[in-house]
């Protein structure tokens, strides 16, 4: 226990100290984590052998990140990406693998080893790249989207890679390993343990394929048909931590299933994310997973830094550095060529090239896997792991180059990146009860993009039946608002039933996001004033309009001319609204308005003026109330 607490303390301490400093220096959080890892690992020796174990655990962060990315992409968006995904991604993996393999051959490696190394190093780091891109707000640019397509293809490519790598085993290594196995029972145990945890080990190729397809079918089926009833059921219990636990269960379960069939866990959760992207729970899922992802991903980066083997690094510094730079250069050439082929604009081309030139976290996995399958000798694998780590370590530096040299030219080089700027932020509607529904219908009918939030799962269900896109969740939760896109939102419409929380929500949003206009539904005058004080740009009393209209209908029923009634109603409204403004000056937060003498007096006065106005209107020909067309006095014409 003490040991664990100490480890935890060390890791957290390193992150808390290094990351903010790195961020302040403009290096980005990823480099901060990596440096933190180097400090506690190789530099101070506070953490040791357990890093690789922790790294394995922390890879869940990558898995969660892919889940979150999946949630942002619904199937149709994914389908639109297919050309870039297969074309760019496929070419990138194939060309990089060939080029690196060729280089390895020249350096004197066996062809099998060369090809394995090429394949392993063709992959890039999803963790670093996606984290950095979203941190710098570049994920939506052409370069960012292209990078994502390639990374996604690499994740998919992991499946065939795991199948192909064992075929590249070198005969000599197999002999040595078999020998070692025979003499070292512990190693044999370890291998046995690994096999125990696999559903496909030892199966013939066709059966393996069937199991894999079955697992993916299970995710698709479960995602479509089971996850939503489950989440709804849990949501009804109104226990937030259980909802979070369910989401974690979902992600961990899928990751486990994928591992059991030798697929990339990240790929499995990505698929699950895409399936859930259209569900009403999307934003709730996002905000629940986000903090776990953040911390685990950070932990993952720290372990990369901490795992650097100083002995090998400094023992053969020139080789490691040379290999690393060589890999980055070769991959960079391929990427730059692809960026030209796919006609990326200049700054995007550089973003794409500099961003993806490193080797990725799957490199560690594949190197271990290759080692176990007698493809690569242990010594070589250690050296190559170091190359992977170092190339990842250099990536933030490459991003810094992009920031300093390329990015400043961006605005000049492409003055109108229309599809980025034109994209209007959404309108968020909090509360989709009787009030919010009408607001939402009007906006949608007018072609406005809305994001609807409500904490009643049943309410959301009804909306879905009408084909209205809405999400489950408590709109007063900051993280949920964040997931719904409050940063980019143009408007927030507050139509939730809880008066006090409505006021809190308005107050919070106006304080945190002053640029978002807030329109709120008020229950009565006091609530209206509270909302106005909280900063609402527009607050309307919920029953005022309907009452006024009903009153107008009554006047029409009494035989008054409809246009006259219309003008009376308008005059009444104007008078009433003016009165509201006047009374607001006297209002205080005293909960009982009836005890505010000044306000009562003014209200009485105001009511009297209205009566006067209406009276005058009836008696005098030249009315001032409605101020419609008024006939000139008879005989006044010259």
């Amino acid at each position, binding site marked *: 226990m003490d040991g664990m607490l100490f480890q935890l303390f060390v890791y957290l301490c390193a992150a808390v100290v290094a990351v903010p400093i790195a961020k302040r220096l403009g290096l980005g959080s990823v480099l901060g984590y990596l440096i933190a890892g180097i400090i506690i690992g190789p530099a101070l020796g506070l953490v040791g052998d357990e890093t690789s174990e922790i790294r394995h655990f922390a890879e869940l962060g990558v898995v969660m990140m892919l889940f979150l990315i999946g949630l942002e992409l619904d199937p149709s968006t994914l389908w639109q990406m297919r050309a870039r995904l297969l074309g760019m991604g496929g070419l990138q993996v194939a060309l990089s693998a060939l080029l690196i393999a060729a280089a390895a051959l020249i350096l004197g490696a066996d062809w099998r080893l060369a090809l394995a190394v090429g394949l392993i190093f063709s992959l890039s780091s999803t963790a670093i790249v996606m984290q950095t891109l979203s941190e710098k707000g570049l994920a939506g640019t052409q370069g960012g989207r292209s990078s994502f397509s390639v990374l996604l293809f690499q994740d998919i490519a992991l499946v065939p890679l795991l199948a192909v790598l064992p075929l590249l085993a070198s005969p000599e290594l197999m002999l040595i390993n078999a020998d070692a196995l025979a003499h070292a029972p512990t190693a044999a145990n370890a291998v046995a343990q690994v096999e125990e945890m696999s559903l496909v080990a030892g199966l013939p190729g066709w059966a393996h394929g069937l199991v894999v397809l079955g697992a993916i079918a299970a995710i698709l089926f479960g995602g479509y048909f089971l996850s939503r009833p489950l989440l709804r059921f849990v949501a009804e219990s109104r226990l937030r931590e259980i909802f979070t636990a369910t989401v974690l269960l979902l992600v961990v379960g899928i990751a486990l299933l994928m591992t059991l069939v030798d697929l990339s866990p990240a790929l499995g959760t990505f698929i699950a994310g895409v399936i859930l992207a259209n569900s009403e729970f999307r934003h709730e899922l996002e905000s629940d997973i986000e903090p776990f992802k953040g911390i685990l991903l950070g932990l993952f980066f720290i372990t990369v830094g901490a795992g650097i083997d100083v002995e090998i690094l400094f023992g053969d510094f020139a080789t490691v550095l040379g290999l690393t730079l060589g890999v980055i250069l070769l991959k960079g050439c391929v990427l730059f060529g692809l960026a030209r082929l796919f006609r990326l604009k200049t700054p995007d081309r550089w973003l794409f090239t500099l961003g993806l030139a490193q080797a990725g976290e799957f490199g560690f996995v594949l190197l271990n896997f290759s080692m176990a399958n007698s493809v690569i000798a242990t010594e070589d694998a250690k050296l190559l792991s170091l190359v992977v780590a170092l190339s990842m370590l250099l990536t933030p530096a490459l991003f810094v180059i992009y920031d300093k040299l390329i990015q400043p030219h961006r605005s000049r080089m492409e003055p109108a990146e229309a599809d980025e700027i034109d994209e209007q932020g959404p309108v968020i509607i909090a509360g989709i009860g009787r009030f919010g529904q009408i607001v939402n219908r009007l906006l949608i009918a007018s072609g406005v993009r809305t994001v609807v939030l409500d904490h009643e799962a049943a309410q959301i269900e009804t909306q879905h039946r009408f084909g209205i896109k809405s999400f489950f969740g408590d709109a007063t939760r900051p993280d949920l608002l964040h997931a719904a896109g409050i940063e980019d939102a143009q408007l927030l419409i507050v139509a939730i039933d809880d008066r006090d929380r409505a006021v809190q929500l308005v107050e919070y949003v106006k304080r945190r996001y002053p640029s978002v206009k807030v329109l709120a539904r008020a229950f009565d005058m006091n609530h209206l004033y509270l909302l106005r004080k909280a900063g609402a740009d527009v607050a309307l009393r919920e029953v005022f309009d309907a009452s006024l209209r009903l009153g107008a209908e009554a006047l029409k029923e009494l035989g008054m001319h409809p246009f006259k009634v219309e003008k009376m109603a*308008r005059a009444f409204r104007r008078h009433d609204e003016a009165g509201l403004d006047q009374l607001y000056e006297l209002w205080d937060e005293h909960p009982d308005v009836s005890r505010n003498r000044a306000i009562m007096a003014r209200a009485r006065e105001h009511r009297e003026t209205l009566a006067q106005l209406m009276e005058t209107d009836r008696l005098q020909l030249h009315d001032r109330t409605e*101020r*419609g*067309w*008024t006939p*000139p*006095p008879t005989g*006044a014409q*010259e």
Partner: protein
Amino acid sequence: MTSEPRRATDTDPPRTWERRILVLYAHPSPDRSEVNRHLADAAIRTQGVTLVDLYGEYPDYGIDVDREQARLRAHEVIVFLHPLYWYSTPAILKEWQDLALEHGFAYGTEGTALHGKIFFSALTAGGPELAYRAEGFHHFGIRELLNPLEQTAHLCGMVYLPPFALFSARTALEEGRLETHIADWVTLLKALRDDRLDISHAQKLRMLNAELPSLIRED
């Protein structure tokens, strides 16, 4: 920008200029406007000009008479900016006349608030200029068709100027006539503002844009 919110100075703009100009802009669907919208934007950018988007400000036609009369008092030149609808203004400008030009304010023995102010209409017409004459498709010249406005101005004691008009307005953009028209419009507004327009000469013309350069004195 045409539905720019009301500015506090609407009813009391500074008296920096010889004449302050009030442009009452009426287009029921400004997002589909090809000419008027740009004229409105140009007017907003011209100093000394107050632009009121009537449809924007009174979407329910509920004209605020007091506010409109205050605006009229605070300007020396009144301009209607609109497309020609049925040989007249769009409906809201008629409603504006019905309500804002009250007896005792705009006409009648006490109604002298508008005396001496300059009035004209800046309009766009779909038909070609040749159609607006006795032997043409529309049978009347543009100035004749606007006789009701001219007489309204006279009854209110205002100085009436002929219209500033753009014909064949639907093809103005593609034929490249829009830029010149906007430039003329701004020139006209500035000349009025700085009292450089030959008013008595202008009054006799059929249209303001016909001989615009000869009407303007360079200072």
